[in-house]
């Protein structure tokens, strides 16, 4: 009895920390493993394929198609990952203990940092061929999409309404049927929202992952990213312009042809049956719904699915009453074995990591990396503050005017999706021409793409301020600073927090490409951890890459745990309206 009593908050907090640590070790261990495998395969190759890219604008449609296909493939992979990984985590207690912290850590690892490692790793499967590079690129995009989708699905699985759960149990739905009839539909709205966010975020990475140079290996895949890399190399401002224009069109098409229809379609899965809000609308969906051909295809699929339900079901007459006794008590020694295994793996991995890094890197350099981390951290915080000071008032102003918000909201979401790294050359051009200090003027690039998350979340928050609340403040004559302090800021705070956390995470990632930028043979460099990682990548020095990634992940995790999460909890508790 005493032992159970002691399982209180303290041990819970401690155990969360413990599993986080285990997860971090596993992720780093994996990266080290990849790095080591890769360095064995490092060899100069495929230099010639660089020539394949053409700067002729007429080649852009094909490149755009290839880029968006990569994107789509990665999305399919992410969905598969989501359905398996998150389901596994939600259904198995032991798996959950390790899988969920693992997701959490993976979310914080700077993807751009280990693209180089994975590229070489995948190339080693098919050296000299494009397949390896394609796989690496798709994998990089996948890593920028999958984690938050899996998280959202896992959370939905845990919040399936109790009554619907009871209905499906009392009608004895098979697990397969339950998954497709209850769990997936219930998770759908949140999942689609996360797919959109993932998609937005990953344009940035698709561009960054198409043209990679690691040591002597240069990999270029036909696509917008390589096009722009070549344009930068050859200082062709016109070509950069073309690429930006095409990117805009691609994102627009994706939005109209894929996401609008999806959102409109997923509306039926909303669990709350509230009235009043007009349902989302999509002309594409309307067209599809009226098409005979589509109706025929979906009916066919529905039939096949029905058939799988029948196959998955135990016939009633065979089932009996006690067809499945639930095992409540797992044997304790299995637990001990499991924990013991984890402990052994952890010790082995930490030994391995230390050995791998210290093989080449002096201990003092760890200190340097941490110091550079602090510089980047200061940059991120200053930029977030500046962006907040600008966008919060703008967002509130827009959010309170429904007409303006309707126009501004899609624009802000669109800007968030636009890969900001396409704009970097313009900035470098400006900095070089005006001879500015790169340590200061390169910094804004980090937040160029991510600041929009702050804006559109604040717009969303301000538009939820109830009319009554605004009326009463007008009635009491609350205006000026008091109005901001008592009404506007508290109302948008929870939304602002969501935006700012996304923006902060994104900026850390962007620092890897933003702290060191080139234009032809001019290279500008700021001091920071991002630049450190990029430099190591270019030099093909995986030991320093791993060190950089480890330090950056540690920074991101710590800042999330110690700063953003407490603030977010406070926002949720104190300021959430309704």
């Amino acid at each position, binding site marked *: *009895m005493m032992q*159970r*009593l002691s399982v209180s908050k303290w041990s819970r907090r401690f155990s969360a920390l413990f599993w986080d640590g285990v997860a971090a070790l596993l992720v780093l261990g994996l990266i080290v493993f990849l790095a080591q495998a890769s360095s064995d395969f490092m060899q100069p190759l495929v230099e010639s394929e660089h020539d394949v890219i053409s700067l002729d604008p007429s080649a852009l449609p094909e490149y755009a198609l290839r880029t968006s296909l990569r994107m789509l493939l990665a999305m399919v992979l992410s969905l598969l990952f989501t359905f398996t990984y998150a389901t596994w985590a939600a259904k198995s207690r032991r798996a959950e203990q390790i899988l969920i912290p693992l997701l959490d850590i993976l979310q914080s690892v700077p993807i751009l940092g280990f693209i180089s490692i994975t590229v070489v790793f995948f190339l080693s499967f098919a050296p000299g061929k494009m397949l390896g590079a394609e796989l690496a690129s798709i994998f990089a995009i996948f890593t920028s999409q999958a984690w938050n989708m899996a998280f959202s699905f896992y959370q939905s699985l845990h919040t399936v*309404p109790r*009554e*619907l759960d*009871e*209905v499906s*149990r*009392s*009608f*004895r*739905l*098979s697990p397969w*049927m339950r998954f497709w*009839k*209850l769990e997936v*539909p219930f998770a*759908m709205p949140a999942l689609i929202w996360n797919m959109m966010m993932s998609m937005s975020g990953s344009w940035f990475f698709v561009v960054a992952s198409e043209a990679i140079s690691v040591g002597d290996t240069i990999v270029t895949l036909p696509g917008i990213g390589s096009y722009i890399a070549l344009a930068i190399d050859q200082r062709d401002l016109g070509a950069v312009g073309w690429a930006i224009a095409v990117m805009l069109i691609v994102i627009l098409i994706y939005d109209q042809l894929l996401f609008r229809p999806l959102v409109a379609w997923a509306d*039926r*899965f*909303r*669990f709350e*049956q509230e*009235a009043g809000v007009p349902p989302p609308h999509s002309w594409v969906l309307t067209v599809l719904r009226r098409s005979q051909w589509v109706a025929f295809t979906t009916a066919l699929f529905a*039939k096949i699915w*029905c058939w799988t*339900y*029948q196959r998955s*079901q*135990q*016939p*009633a007459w065979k*089932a*009996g*009453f*006690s*067809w*499945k*006794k*639930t095992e409540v008590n797992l044997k304790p020694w299995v637990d001990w074995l499991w924990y013991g295994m984890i402990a052994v793996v952890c010790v082995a991995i930490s030994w391995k990591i230390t050995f791998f890094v210290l093989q080449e890197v002096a201990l003092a350099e760890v200190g340097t990396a941490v110091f550079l981390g602090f510089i980047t951290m200061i940059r991120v915080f200053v930029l977030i503050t500046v962006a907040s000071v600008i966008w919060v008032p703008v967002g509130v102003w827009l959010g309170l005017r429904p007409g303006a918000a309707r126009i501004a909201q899609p624009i802000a979401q669109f800007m968030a999706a636009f890969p900001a790294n396409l704009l970097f050359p313009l900035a470098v051009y400006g900095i070089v021409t005006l001879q500015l200090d790169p340590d200061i003027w390169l910094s804004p690039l980090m937040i160029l793409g991510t600041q929009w998350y702050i804006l559109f979340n604040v717009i969303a928050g301000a538009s939820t301020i109830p009319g009554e609340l605004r009326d009463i403040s007008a009635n009491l004559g609350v205006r000026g600073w008091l109005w901001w302090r008592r009404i506007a800021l508290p109302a948008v705070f929870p939304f602002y927090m969501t935006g700012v956390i996304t923006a902060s995470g994104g900026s850390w990632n962007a620092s890897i490409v933003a702290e060191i930028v080139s234009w032809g043979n001019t290279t500008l460099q700021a001091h920071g951890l991002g630049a450190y990682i990029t430099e190591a990548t270019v030099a093909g020095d995986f030991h320093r890459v791993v060190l950089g990634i480890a330090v950056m992940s540690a920074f991101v995790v710590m800042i999330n745990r110690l700063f953003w999460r407490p603030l977010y909890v406070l926002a949720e*508790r*104190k300021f959430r309206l309704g």
Partner: protein
Amino acid sequence: MLLDIREIHKSFHKPDGSELLVLDGINLAVNKGEIIGLLGRSGSGKSTLLRLIAGLASPSAGSIIYLGNEVTAPPPGVAMVFQNSALFPWLTVLENVQLGLEALGLPINELRQRAIKAIDLIGLDGFESAYPRELSGGMRQRVGFARALVVHPNILLMDEPFSALDVLTAETLRTDFLDLWSEGQLPIKGVILVTHNIEEAVLMCDRIFIFGNNPGRIINEIKVELTHPRARLDPTFRDLVEHIYVEMTTRAVSTSAGKRTEYFPGTGIGTNLPSVTSNSLSGLIEAVAAPPYNGEADLPVIASSLRMEIDDLFPVAETLQMLRFAEVAGGDIKLTTEGLQFLEFDTDQRKRLFAWHLLTYVALAAHIRRVLDERPTHRAPWNRFSDELEDYMPQAAAERTLRTIITLGRYAEIFSYDDEKHIFSLDNP
């Protein structure tokens, strides 16, 4: 015999590892052709019992025998109708009704035919392709019935199926159901209805089991021998309703005078307080004092005149009794001298009288005040009391009790509470 429930005990684990008993020694049997009512207030464990029968949870002791087999998982031939219909919002009416049949693995043609038949039977033809959000609450509940009936269950379990509906809709649905049942059109052999509405139980059931609280147990079994259709205004019907009212109120008091302090309102600090506010308390005092009652009212009468259900009225009445502003017995509520005095007073005097009663008769209030007085800082965190309460009741009940005492304590100004820091204090009480 369809179902035989023998010596069922059910308890839940509390966070501290001890057990909380919610069902204590339940015995009942369901025969073919019967509608059984489980009548009681919320927290009497009747819904828990229904879920045990449905195989959705397992009893701590005892057994449930259905057609000769012990229930350990959801058994075939037992279907349930839920309080809030529990339809899948992403499925149409037809697809919702088909759900149970699909799970049986029936061929598509057969399940469509059966589903359409059930939809017609329950009066939903024409709505097959509608989504639940397009339907009114009553229509949704009809879909819930069709979904349960289509699998041709032997036993239909109903978990307060009419309580979320408005009065007229509920009445139509009840009579429709009873008509189909007495005409023998329903493919079911027995019904178990969970309800807290006495009139509903008398209207529908052949036998009514009255449940008592803390722990949930059967305190009486009543046979209803009126023929269908039953008229609410029939004197025999009214007598029966009145009889059950008295039964439920007097039992509450007579058991409370007995052994365990928790039963007697306002003795131990482990008293489970319902969710009431100072407004609802003074509201009931005013209502009872006003003509035509003049200080003494019949509970069913005043309940219907206030348009309240017993579940809503009992907690308020009992809290008034706990505070000695009223006496509740034999289905009546009578204001005490202090209750009448309370009415005469202005706001400040009322608060003072209320504070005095709260500290004198509600041990938890006195306990919190004493702890705050004794501490040099005059502060205590929420956990200080919630942990203590969780020794007596589940976490949810402890939270509710503490919330109620905070509301009452704030009104009486005997202590204050900071919801952000979760701290009780004597600041500015």
